[in-house]
């Protein structure tokens, strides 16, 4: 791996009231990455981002940006710029003045300021509104001003706090693509904070999932989805069936366990575990059939259809099984007649390949 542009080492933040917002976080972010901090609201994402920008300081740990520990450096001395959740576009300045602000206050020559401001406005497609005041602009336009204002500084790292949360659905999709495009053109590291898994999965090259101030997993979107490290990640990213299981025996490379409603199962895993684990399997990996499936090695269980929800392209079927949790099965409606063809109350078999399920130890 190339040298990380941002390296967060053992960072904790305890607020005066006693809240531990960030708890011993370690993250390395490579140059040019589109990195997302993902987690439920209140998990400490914003606090972490603000510590990178210098608007908060950690109570513990190092924040190394471009090779220097900047944990206690004031924000105006850091090579980072932020797009605020509320945009914070100065209401007493025109769009142009807003964008030029960061250059003027740091003594960039006026002709260079003019040129770079014009370029930045061009980049976010706001040149025609240069003379407007922010109160005559829509939320989406103000956000572009905030983006241009940060990008014109050519920071090493651009920080974005929930950039899409205040936009309506249509604008949100446009902006999502625009941000990806911008990141590719300017070649700056983006760190984005979001609570929306779709946003993170579709934009980011890597994601750190955070819960209660602690990092749960750092991985690419597909790894997160297919190989969640913890129950929290599996549950937070997409839908998942989680079946509690009691460990019967542990060998070096395999676990044998008694999963609720499924009986005795053996999984190949090298992870250490305690007395209980969870079997996780995505709904779309499950198959249903009226007759007992005959193929060898399948995990299978019989149950009753409790609910069928029709979604056009797919149907979501909830199957209740004896002694275990309800399982959700998503099936493709690929024939034009009658959707999934199952009815409520019907007896049915659910099965899946063992490799499609995971055993989660934490």
């Amino acid at each position, binding site marked *: 791996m190339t040298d990380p542009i941002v390296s967060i080492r053992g960072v904790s933040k305890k607020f*005066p009231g006693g809240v531990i917002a960030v708890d011993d976080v370690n993250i390395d972010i490579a140059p040019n990455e589109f990195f997302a901090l993902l987690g439920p609201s209140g998990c400490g994402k914003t606090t972490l981002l603000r510590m990178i*920008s*210098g*608007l908060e300081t950690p109570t513990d740990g190092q924040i190394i940006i471009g090779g220097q520990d900047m944990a206690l450096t*004031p*924000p*105006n001395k850091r090579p*980072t*710029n*932020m797009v*605020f959740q*509320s945009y*914070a576009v*100065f*209401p*007493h300045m025109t769009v142009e003045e807003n964008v030029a*602000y*960061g250059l003027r*206050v*740091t003594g960039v020559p006026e002709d260079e300021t003019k040129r770079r401001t014009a370029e930045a406005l061009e980049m976010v497609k706001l040149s025609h509104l240069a003379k407007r*005041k922010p*109160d005559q602009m829509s939320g989406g336009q103000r956000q572009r001003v905030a983006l241009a*204002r*940060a990008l014109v*500084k050519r920071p090493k790292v651009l920080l974005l706090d929930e950039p899409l949360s205040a936009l309506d659905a249509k604008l949100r999709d446009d902006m999502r693509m625009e941000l990806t495009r911008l990141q590719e053109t300017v070649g700056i590291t983006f760190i984005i904070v979001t609570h929306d898994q779709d946003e993170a999965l579709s934009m980011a090259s890597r994601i750190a999932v955070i819960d209660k101030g602690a990092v749960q997993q750092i991985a690419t979107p597909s790894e997160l989805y297919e190989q969640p490290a913890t129950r929290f990640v599996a549950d937070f990213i997409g839908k998942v069936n989680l079946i509690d299981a009691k460990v019967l025996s542990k060998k070096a490379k395999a676990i044998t366990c008694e999963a609720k409603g499924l009986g005795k199962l053996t999984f190949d895993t090298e992870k250490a575990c305690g007395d209980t684990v969870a079997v996780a399997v995505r709904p779309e990996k499950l198959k249903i059939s009226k007759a007992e499936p005959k193929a060898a090695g399948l995990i299978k269980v019989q149950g009753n259809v409790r609910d069928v929800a029709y979604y056009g392209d797919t149907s979501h079927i909830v199957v209740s099984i004896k002694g275990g949790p309800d399982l959700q099965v998503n099936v493709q409606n690929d024939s034009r007649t009658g959707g999934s063809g199952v009815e409520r109350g019907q007896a049915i078999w659910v099965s899946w390949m063992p490799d499609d399920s995971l055993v989660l130890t934490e």
Partner: protein
Amino acid sequence: MDNWKDNRSVFWTLAGPGTFWLLVFFILPLGFLFVMSFSDKAIINGEVSITEYDYLTGISNYIRSVDTLYLTIIWKSIWVSALATVLCLLTAYPIAFGICFASEKWKPLLLLLVVLPFWINLLIRTYALIAVFRSQGYVNLALGAVGLGPYDMLYNNFAVIFGLVYVYMPFMVLPLYATIERLDKSYLEASLDLGASQFTTFLKVTIPLTMPGIITGVILVFIPCLGSFLTPDLLGGANAIMIGNVIERQFKAANDWPFGAALSFMLMYATFAALMLRAFLAKRSAGVDV
């Protein structure tokens, strides 16, 4: 809200007494004062009468009020008030700012501490200042202990300005506090984040965005300073006179009511001018107060 025509009897019952009181005991007296300002003392048998007047004789009183002697006093009242206002602003701004950024636990107490003196009688507060600053007062006592003074700190312009600042400070703190408290702190953060120093941020973001509060505070302090009578009277001595003292003298010792009336109207016009300036400035900075 109802239209007044829907229930005229209730409307008039409610509106009547207060309006009547204000018309008879406020507007009418001002009318008398207005007429008086255009009048002169009557000359009876070749002598200037003490109690009789010739009404509506002309604008001689106003002409007299722009005489250099009085113009100097008016001018001095304005700059003394302006200086007191600026000093108020310079001390009140950090106070209001500090209260806004104090912890939630301390905020109400600090605010109460600023406002409380305001509820204590103006006369008593001024008297308290005299006790502190007079030549045998505590300040000179303290200075004497280190071998300095005593200094004459009372009965000069310095004492008047200090007294005005002391007395009207809460008027400045409150509107400033209200605007700074409402100010979205992420503007300041954005400025720092964009590379501006704390000082630049203060000059280019904090001050412009709290301008409405500054304007209100300045007007709220300037107007009562300009019309003040008690503070210059007690702290100012003979040569630190302001327009309020001249008006008082015309109505008491000098017994020249027509001239006093004219000066009163000059003072009122100045007050209205200040109020209009505020309305104008408020309109201009309307976009800022987001």
